[in-house]
């Protein structure tokens, strides 16, 4: 990379990698900026991790602050498990998140397929129902949902946490678009061969939209794992708490003990960071697809 190779009219090269060569100083400046933003986005997480690893003997407030703990200890993690059943909370969160993934994938794929690939009276009406449901913000109907859950005697149950969002209208529309984007020929061939709708759906269409299905699954997991407002409303019994509600309780009750709160937050965030590290591509794809419809 030399600073003399400025903008040559070689268009092909420029197109292929989206890269005119950058002067060295500009590249350096870019990395400095990247590192600054990195410190700003990741720094807070690291500080929390560091706090959770600092032992009781270490002064959290000392100056200058130290990111690296002097004596690393996992004591705060067992400590937080002693005052709140944090592993039960984690298990509840996991149950809610997995249930949300299953119902959303199955329900959205089925409905999306019917909307995209079947022709029948009332299809347009069905589509409008999903579109309207998408327009209603959850925050404006949560009180009515809470009343409904009470009537169904599902308040304060994990089922009550899962049910309202178990098939998201947006996911239905995402799946519909994915199915609509598939070429017709293959399904037509299967139709000619006598495959009925279920076979065409399961054997041919569904395997072709795995990418979108993965997006739905990931966002369903993340949405349920991270959700706060609805579980806060519907859950009242500590044994049913999910991690986010448990953390809020921990914060409200043991706010002074920063080490324990920090350990709790690390327990809550680590699984998602690992998931994200493994499945980055689908996360980013989901943002693009969701934004168009969102």
């Amino acid at each position, binding site marked *: 990379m030399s600073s003399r190779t400025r903008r040559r009219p070689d268009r092909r090269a420029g197109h292929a990698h989206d890269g005119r060569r950058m002067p060295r100083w500009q590249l350096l400046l870019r990395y400095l900026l990247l590192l600054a933003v990195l410190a700003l986005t990741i720094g807070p997480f690291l500080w929390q991790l560091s706090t959770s690893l600092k032992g009781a003997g270490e002064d959290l407030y000392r100056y200058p602050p130290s990111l690296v703990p002097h004596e690393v200890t996992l004591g705060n993690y067992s400590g937080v498990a002693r005052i709140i059943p944090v592993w039960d909370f984690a298990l509840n969160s996991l149950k809610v998140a997995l249930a949300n993934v299953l119902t959303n994938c199955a329900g959205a794929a089925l409905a999306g397929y019917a909307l995209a690939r079947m022709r029948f009276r009332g299809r347009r009406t069905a589509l409008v129902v999903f579109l309207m449901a998408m327009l209603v913000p959850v925050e404006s109907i949560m009180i009515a949902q809470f009343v409904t859950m009470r009537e169904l005697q599902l308040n304060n149950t994990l089922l009550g946490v899962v049910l309202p969002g178990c098939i998201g209208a947006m996911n239905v529309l995402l799946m519909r678009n994915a199915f609509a984007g598939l070429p017709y020929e293959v399904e*037509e061939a299967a139709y000619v061969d006598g495959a009925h709708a279920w076979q065409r759906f399961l054997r041919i269409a569904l395997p072709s939209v795995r990418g979108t299905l993965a997006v739905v699954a990931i966002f369903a997991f993340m949405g349920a794992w991270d959700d706060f407002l609805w579980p806060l409303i519907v859950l009242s019994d500590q044994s049913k708490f999910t991690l986010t509600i448990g953390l809020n309780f921990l914060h409200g009750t043991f706010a002074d003990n920063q080490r324990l*709160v920090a350990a709790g937050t690390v327990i809550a965030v680590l699984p998602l960071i690992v998931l994200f590290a493994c499945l980055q591509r689908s996360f980013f794809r989901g943002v693009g697809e969701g*934004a168009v419809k969102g």
Partner: protein
Amino acid sequence: MKTATTPRGRDAGARSPATAPPPPSGPRKGSGIRPHLPSSPWLFLAPGLLVVTAFGLYPFLSTVTGSFTDARTLAPGRFVGGANYRELIHDAMFWTGLRNSLLYVLGVVPLLVVLPLLLAMLVRRQIPAITFFRAAFYTPVVASVVVVGLIWVWLLDDRGLINALLEGLGFGRVGFLSDPWLLLLSAMAVTVWKGLGYYMIIYLAALAGVPRELHEACAVDGAGAVRRFLTVTVPAVRSTMVLVAALSSVGAFKVFSEVYLMAGPTGGPGGEDTTLVMLVQQVGTGLSGRVGYASALSVVVFVLTLGLMLLVLRAHRTEDR
């Protein structure tokens, strides 16, 4: 919305000419893709329609009808006409909540429209390790708002890291979480911090569609980086900016968790930092919840959310002319 960050937004009709010679919804009477059994499509649709109706549309209708009753959590309530709405107008907490939620929109949206765009330009080039940076900048999006809130509560604490650094640099400590106005600003900052990565990815997709030649032509004409940004990049991603403005303003108006965690369940001393959705939650839940009044508040949330979105989209359309 004419924004197409990815080509997924198009429907089957739009792409049919490219795929199959006979249009799928065209004159294919009888043959083609048709349900085997007449009831079959409804079997496919049933779970989705049931959930969306029972837990989306029905609650919406019962929110609207409930807003004209004096229902409580344990009592169905009687019809009271517009009493809830009249009460709302004289409720100081309602105006505090409305003020805070609207201030939140004003504070958060401009930053979330501009900063992620700059960030997207920063991570746009395929330079070594850029995928790592992109992923790292997205991490706050992945974390739960509760985790994010608690992380910042600790950072902004009176004796937390930021105040320690401020003091070390010779400034005094700042009561980020004790002064009501500073707390609201801090919560906005946290919302922006958490949202940056999400909108960065949206902008990244939009920037990929900006033709390189435009930049080059502009550079040949001697335009500097700032000038090129304003005359080439901004117009090219303008519809994405509107999309981001719409999404972020709706999100900001419905803010709950950040303020709830930082100010406490009742919005700080005197409820000065209560937002509209916090008020709905306070009024409507619990055993003595005033469901009727909370429903009226919910209707206001709904109307203003929708209005905000239409306002943004309309501003875009008039700008087009």
